[in-house]
């Protein structure tokens, strides 16, 4: 059976279902933007998206444009327009319920790397964008949701560089470092599976499988071994409604969602 949707579509649809309505969501660049737009159109009309560049509660105008961030579409019909220091302050003060991020690598404690691959900081094997607002989002929002392509090189025992904090070295580490109490990674949505974090060990825990994916598929494509929930949820594929809105309204140029090979 050939797939009728892309991995990215799967991730976006899955994550769009995770956002509770009537919550504030700090939305990062790229996939999270699309997922938040989809969520608002379909599942949680009253989420309040907030962006690091100062938009509070926009009804983001579609279609989505490549590199759209901070422009008029991204800021359309907001409750308020502010600026970066004010947005970060509000997250720091506890007003923002969810953080919603993409990343290049993640490790078993949910630490995110979007800075470098390699151990030599001065001459990295590969350089990425760095934190952006990610460090603040992952540090200050109450619950962070991370979107990740499911590849072995991305799910690591330990990331080369902790750009944005997960649970650091495990239980208690965030609090010891001075990070806000009770904050931290909440879910990881990959192109194969859904994870939360084991309450005791703070290690990533497999809780759901995407359609057609086996537990073994998931584990083989991770460098570390996650905790595995007793019962794995069978996650639904993108629905017809989701795909229609994604492909017709939100991203008709397939800038982010891509095309089926």
């Amino acid at each position, binding site marked *: 059976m050939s797939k009728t949707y892309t991995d990215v579509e799967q991730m976006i649809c899955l994550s769009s279902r995770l956002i509770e309505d009537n919550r504030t969501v700090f939305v990062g660049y790229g996939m999270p933007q699309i997922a938040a737009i989809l969520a608002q159109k379909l599942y949680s009309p009253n989420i309040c998206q907030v*962006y*690091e*560049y*100062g*938009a509070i509660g926009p009804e983001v*105008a579609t279609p989505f*444009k*490549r*590199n759209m*961030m*901070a*422009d*008029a*579409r991204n*800021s*359309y*019909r*907001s409750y308020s*327009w*502010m*600026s*970066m*220091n004010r947005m*970060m302050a509000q997250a*720091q003060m506890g007003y923002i319920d969810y953080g919603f991020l993409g990343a290049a690598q993640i490790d078993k404690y949910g*630490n995110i790397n979007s*800075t470098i691959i390699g151990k030599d*900081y*001065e*001459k*990295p*094997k*590969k*350089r*990425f*964008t*760095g*934190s*952006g*607002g*990610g*460090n*603040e989002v992952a*540090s*200050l929002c109450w619950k962070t949701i991370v979107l990740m392509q499911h590849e072995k090189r991305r799910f690591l025992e330990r990331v080369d*560089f*902790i*750009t*944005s*904090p997960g649970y*650091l070295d495990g239980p208690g*580490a*965030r609090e010891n*470092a*001075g*990070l*806000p109490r009770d904050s931290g990674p909440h879910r990881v949505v990959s192109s194969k599976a859904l994870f939360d974090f084991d309450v005791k060990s703070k290690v990533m825990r497999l809780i759901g499988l995407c359609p057609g994916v086996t537990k073994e598929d998931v584990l083989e494509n991770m460098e570390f071994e996650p905790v595995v929930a007793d019962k794995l949820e069978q996650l639904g594929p993108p629905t017809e409604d989701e795909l229609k809105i994604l492909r017709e309204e939100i991203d008709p140029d397939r800038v982010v969602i891509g095309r089926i090979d």
Partner: protein
Amino acid sequence: MDVLESGMGEVLLQDVDDVREWMRDKKTRALEEKVMDEHEAVRRFLKDGDYISYDLSSMVRGPMSIEREIVRQKKKDLWIAAKFTLLDTTLLVGGGCVSKIDVGFAGLGRPLFEAIENGIVKTIDWSNGTLALRHLAGAMGVPFLPARSLLGTDTFKHSGAKVVEEPFTGKKVALVPAINPDVAIIHVNQCDVYGNSRVYGPSITPLETAAASKNVIISTEEIISTDEIKKDPGKTTIPYYMVNAVVVAPYGAHPGTVPGYYSYDSEHLEEFFAARSLEELAEYIDKYVHSTSGHEDYMEMVGGDARMEELKKAEWIKEGYY
């Protein structure tokens, strides 16, 4: 309140009293006309080795015409604050102007990553939020501000922040040092000849950056009268006495957008993005920067009035702007 840990990143530390003195002696409170062309503004107020900060980004209300002029004048050895930057950093690095980058968000270009991976430019990693906060500290005239981010990460280790236990409730907090850039370049919607400036829409740190910086170059879509400014003071983002130069630059954010006014030039951006190496980027820069005499000439090359009219029409959202 001992320092528990210090990041290893290099920081441009300045004595806040020295900066105060600069603000007193080198910026004027007189109502002097500051309008000049971009050649003069960059020549007079920006020199090799300076620390530069811009606001917002190449994609949105960015001071692109001034950034192109910096490349055109082949400024060297700049240290730049890459907070919420997009292609800005890539352009300046591609132009050979940069030696150090305080990274909030390191653009989006392969050529930039190539320069970093090859050690051509040095990075000091921060985050968008803490770089914005450092500008706020600089604007407040204090040596540092506290934050609850950075903590526990490698971003902290490579930054120039410190961790302390604060003396009121015993929390561990990160302290980030103030930054007072040598030069700020900020593109605004409107300003008067003295520099009283209006920015419409959400923003990163236009006021903080202007207040903190020792020299401030404003580029503007248009000049309005001081009388108009005074009729609606709630719209003024930056007061005149923070400003050193006003450059009139219609469509100055091209190929980016000025929200509510004109859209991005997606076709041109594709051309920029197509440069996948420093070498390819050099070709782009030769064509659009070094081969043009200035902003006016550049605008002709990218399509002139006809193209700009199209971009204005493409920006259908007007609510809340102007």
